[in-house]
Structures are given as structure tokens and as C-alpha cells.
């Protein structure tokens, strides 16, 4: 893999109620990366830092090897962003909003925009304040996808959208990827990522838990499901996360192979879905526990 299109290095940002602590990962061109994590893990702050909306306290973000803090304005011509709650000036027609937006991007592709608008069921004559949240997101996506951007940064673009549309959108996004483009995509709907994402980065409590390919995740993470009695005899040692209810326990391990050997015949050991990992890891790292892989 050549040097990544987007590289985040030791990014830190402290807010009164929350902190991003030395976040580092890379996103190579040609790939779609899913960014997941509980609310308050720092996903939106991280994405905003890439766009220069949030000024980091420390660390560096480079895009195509150039420092975004210093050359952000020029580089943003090639980075498109859809926020988690896109807002548009009320009372303005979508067509006008598009014209204003397009005037900043020489590579604007009008034909593509028109076909996206038709595909997404949007009327350019409509005014921005008549749109629902789902429609605002769709409109923001038409703008982001029509300017030949090399990095797409999408903050929960699928919230409130129905499964059929989400699937089409992801297929469409994946189809835009080539050897100079990448997509960074945060979501709560992890099943969306399982089909299309090449890489998954999990943020928790302001830290990167992992940033891996889906294959690597599948090979290492697992869920152990068993009765509460087993938990009592074996203890919860070695689990990265644990949830119990009246019927039994679910424990998360980052070494599924040795868990299989250890619990053979005594508990069910399955591969962990992204949702399993997220839910079982919980919102914060337990005191004194080391980082996961």
C-alpha cells in the first residue's frame, strides 16, 4: 500500500466535556472506510477536524501528503463533506443553492447533478425549507457527489433513510472509488458497512480502538455466548467486553481462535459482527484495562 490519501497523526482536541486523545490512522486511496463508535466517541469532531471546522490542539492531518492545517482552503476543493444534519438557507430554491455551491468548484459536473437529483427524487424548484431530514441529506449528497471530489467525508448520511435507498447509496458510493479517491463514512448502522466498507475504524471515548480491514476483524474478533454458571467458574478474564442478562452472557474476545479452543463444547463461539464489537466494548474503556488490538 502506498502512502495513504488521508493520514491522521496524533490528533488531539480537548473540549470541556469531551476529549479526542491522540488519534492516528490512514486511509489509502481506492478504499471506503467506515467510522463507528458510540455517541460521544468523537466521530463528528474527528470529521470536522479534517474539514478544518475544528482546530486541533495537537497532531497533524495530511491529505495527499499536504498539511491540511496550512493548505486547507486549496485542498478542500477536492474534499466533499456531508454533515450529520445538513442545513440550507431557508426559502432558497435547490437550484439556486446548487448554483452557488457549484461556482466554487471548477470540476462541477452539471449532468451528473441532474441525474442524481432525478434518482434521489428531488425537484430543483423546491425550496430548501420544505425538505425533510432525509431529503436534506439526499440533496447534500447530490452536491457532494457532483464535484469530482477525491475524498468524501460523510457524517452519518444514512440516518433516517430506508434500507433500499441506503443500499443503493452505498453501491453508488463504492462505484465512484478509483485509485485516486477514498471515502470516510461514519454511521450507527453497522450492517451497512459490512457489505461495502473495506476498512473499519472504531473510536471509543476519544481513542482509536482499531483501524483494520474487515477481513482482519473477522479473523480476530469473536463473541462467546454461554450460561452464567460458566462465567462464574471461568471469570470474565480475557474478555474485551461483557454483557449479561437473565439467560446468559455474551463476551467479546479479540482472539477468536484461542477462545474456540478454550470454550470448546462449553460455550458458543461465533465471529463478532461490528455491532457485537461496538455494543460489547461499551462506551468507555474499563479502568486499568489495556487497549484492544
Amino acid at each position, binding site marked *: 500500500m502506498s502512502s495513504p490519501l488521508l493520514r491522521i497523526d496524533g490528533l488531539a482536541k480537548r473540549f470541556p466535556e469531551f476529549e479526542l486523545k491522540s488519534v492516528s490512522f490512514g486511509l489509502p486511496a481506492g478504499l471506503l472506510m467506515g467510522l463507528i463508535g458510540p455517541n460521544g466517541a468523537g466521530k463528528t469532531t474527528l470529521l*470536522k477536524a479534517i*474539514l*478544518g*471546522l*475544528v*482546530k486541533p490542539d495537537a497532531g497533524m492531518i495530511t491529505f495527499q501528503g499536504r498539511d491540511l492545517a496550512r493548505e*486547507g*482552503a*486549496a*485542498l*478542500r*476543493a477536492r*474534499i466533499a*463533506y456531508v*454533515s450529520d*444534519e445538513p*442545513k*440550507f*438557507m*431557508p*426559502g*432558497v430554491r435547490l437550484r*439556486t*443553492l446548487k*448554483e*452557488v*455551491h457549484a*461556482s*466554487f*468548484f471548477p470540476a462541477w459536473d452539471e449532468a451528473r447533478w441532474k441525474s442524481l437529483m432525478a434518482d434521489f427524487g428531488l425537484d430543483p424548484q423546491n425550496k430548501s425549507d420544505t425538505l425533510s431530514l432525509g431529503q436534506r441529506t439526499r440533496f447534500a449528497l447530490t452536491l457532494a457527489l457532483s464535484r469530482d471530489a477525491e475524498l468524501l467525508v460523510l457524517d452519518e448520511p444514512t440516518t433516517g433513510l430506508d434500507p433500499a435507498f441506503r443500499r443503493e447509496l452505498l453501491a453508488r458510493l463504492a462505484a465512484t472509488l478509483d485509485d485516486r479517491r477514498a471515502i470516510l463514512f461514519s454511521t450507527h448502522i453497522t450492517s451497512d458497512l459490512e457489505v461495502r466498507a473495506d476498512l473499519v475504524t472504531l473510536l471509543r471515548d476519544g481513542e482509536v480502538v482499531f483501524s483494520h480491514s474487515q477481513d482482519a476483524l473477522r479473523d480476530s474478533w469473536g463473541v462467546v455466548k454461554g450460561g452464567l454458571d460458566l462465567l462464574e467458574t471461568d471469570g470474565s478474564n480475557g474478555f474485551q467486553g461483557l454483557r449479561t442478562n437473565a439467560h446468559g452472557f455474551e463476551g467479546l474476545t479479540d482472539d477468536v481462535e484461542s477462545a474456540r479452543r478454550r470454550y470448546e463444547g462449553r460455550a458458543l463461539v461465533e465471529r463478532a459482527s461490528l455491532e457485537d464489537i461496538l455494543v460489547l466494548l461499551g462506551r468507555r474503556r474499563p479502568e486499568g484495562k489495556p487497549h484492544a488490538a
Partner: protein
Amino acid sequence: MLLELLRRDLRLHWGSLVVPILILGMGLGAVVMADEGTRLTGLILETSFLIPMLPVIIHQRESAKGTLGDLLVLPVSRAAVVRLRYAEVLFFTGGLLLLAHAAVWVELSVAARHPIPMSVMSRDQFLGVGVLLIFWFAYPMPLFLGWGMKGLVVGYGSLITLVVTLAMTETDLHRFIDASMARPVAMALVLAGLFTLSYLLSLKFFSRRDF
């Protein structure tokens, strides 16, 4: 880039600029109707509130409607956005003065009473416009850009307090103003300096803000 940004503002915000511009239009009517000696006084008074308010109204709408983020993720720097606000105030002021002149020129030529002068404003009136621009725009703007609505309230609030206090304590403001006006070049330089200082502070405060 500045031109594109300006065009963006005019297209997205013209709706909320209509009322202030109508008021200015009525002001122009008053200019034409008034006596020669006082014809621009009312207009300048208007300028003091309306013109500096236009960029503030625009910026305030952007942040209230949540679209400031949209503006900042465009391939423009924070500095360009600050530059835009300062260019806007000059653009609107210049436009107004030009319109005022045009109105007077038209009126004079229709009446055919006078030889038509190049400038219908006195030097003092020009300086007056500059002073008002400093007070109502250059002073509050860095606070507004740096701290949002809170900054704006502090900026205008302190300004109004200052004006009221000066009026109540009967400070000998007139003598100070007359003395200043007697040195027009120095005065103009001081105004330009203050405007630049305001711009630099805005740049500093706006650049380090998180959105």
C-alpha cells in the same frame, strides 16, 4: 474568490437585505427633497446603523441557520471569510455614497440650477461616515466573529452604554470632534488604522474558533 463569496451572499441573503435597502431608498428620496445644507445629514445617520449592520445581518443569519459550516468547508480560508465581511461593509458603504451622489446629481441637473459639483459631500461628512463605520462595524466585528452572538451582544451593548454615558455626562465632545476634524489627514489615517486593526483582530479570533 472574494467575488464568488460576495455573489453567494447576495444570492442567499437578498431576501433579508430587502428591508434595509428599502429604508436606504427612502433615505435617498429624503436627500433629494432636503435643503442643500442638510441634504446628506440624514443619510449619514442611516449609514451609521444600516450599512454596518448588513454584513452583521448576513453573518448572523449564517450562524443562526446553521449554514456557517457549509461556508467554511468550501475551498476558502477563514481569512477569506473575514475579508469578505470587511469588503462587504466597504462595498455597501461605497454603493450607498455613490447612489446618494447620483441622486443629487440627477436632481441638480433636472433643476438645472447649479453647476454640478464633483462631490456633493463635504470633507467632514466623509470623515463622519468613517467614524461611524469604526464605531458600528469595526469595533463589534472582531467580538462577533470570535465569540458569535455573545460577542455581538457585548459589542453593541458596550457601544450603546458608551454613547448613553457620553450623552449623560455632557462630556465636551464637540470640541474634541472639531479638533479632530481640523486635522483631516491625520484623522483619516487614524480611521484607516483602526479599521485595519479591527480586521487583524477578526482574523485572529475567527481563525481559532471551532464550529
